[in-house]
């Protein structure tokens, strides 16, 4: 694949399950990693401006899954499931929310 001449380069995603144990585990890792910064900005988790290596989650026994999303594929995220990632080259995504009764 020649990424240099291709629009529709894949995206790498890292995701943590949305159950309370794992979501809280992720929050704990985030808070300890960002402890100094969080004193000035306690809402930092909601700013969506932070990235760190998923290995930190693994080290704290928080399960983290990695996928590579290609063109024509969609990714669903569940309530409270932390996710983040980056692009490997030029691409266009389109995203929206939905909600179920539960």
């Amino acid at each position, binding site marked *: *694949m020649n*990424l*240099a001449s291709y*629009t*529709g*380069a*894949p*995206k*790498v995603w*890292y995701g943590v399950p*949305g159950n309370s144990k794992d*979501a809280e585990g*992720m929050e704990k890792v*985030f808070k300890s*990693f*960002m402890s100094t*910064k969080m004193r000035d*900005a306690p809402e*930092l988790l*909601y*700013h*969506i*401006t*932070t*990235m*760190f*290596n998923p290995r930190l989650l693994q080290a704290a026994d928080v399960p983290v899954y990695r996928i*590579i*999303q*290609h*063109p*024509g*594929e*969609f*990714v*669903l*995220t*569940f*309530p*409270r*499931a*932390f*996710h*983040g*990632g*980056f*692009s*490997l*080259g*030029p*691409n*266009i*995504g*389109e*995203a*929206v*929310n*939905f*909600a*179920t009764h539960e």
Partner: protein
Amino acid sequence: MFTYLLALKMDMNKQFQTKEQLLHRIQEGISFGDGDEYTISDYLKYSHEQVKHWYAENYARTNKVMNPQNIEKDYWDIIESSDQEYYVEYGNDVDTHVFGSGFPKSERGRCLGSEIDIDKFHLPEPLFGTEDYYKETYWNPNNIPCCDESILRHVKVGINGINVPWLYFGSIFATFCYHTEDNDFYSFNYHHYGMIQHTLHFIMIVFNSLHHNN
């Protein structure tokens, strides 16, 4: 069969605002400043330049292959070492009601503000792969908030990014940082084929001529 998915009928002339991400400082959680404004075509040019530049600087004179695994390693190297500064402009949260959705609109009232075509309304569900399929499937991001099981269908006004899709223009290393969805929502994230328009027209012409010859 997938030709219709390539047909990104977006406004290529309007400009959107990008955010400038400082990758080498993204572990610090600092706010993103504004990047340049781009039209879709200019952003695609920018993002192609970025990837070519990365290749020229880091791969061209080596035996390394520029594959996803190596780019992922490069990404964490930039983030975790402070030896190099890397800036990237990310076109996030771009309104589909201004630039257009990459999906065709429902004619059976399945998305907010869609017109109902009385002639089509009572037809059976369109076959997979037809243009009508992509208009009407609830896997179309314009429709999914309004599917039977979604409580967002009761929200009758459009809220950008919630029940009206947003577009995301990415480039090498452009980052969507860790987050959960607001209000414990699910999210649906589609990755477009994203062909540039002239290529697209070519494909449409080939497709149309094949179609007519059959």
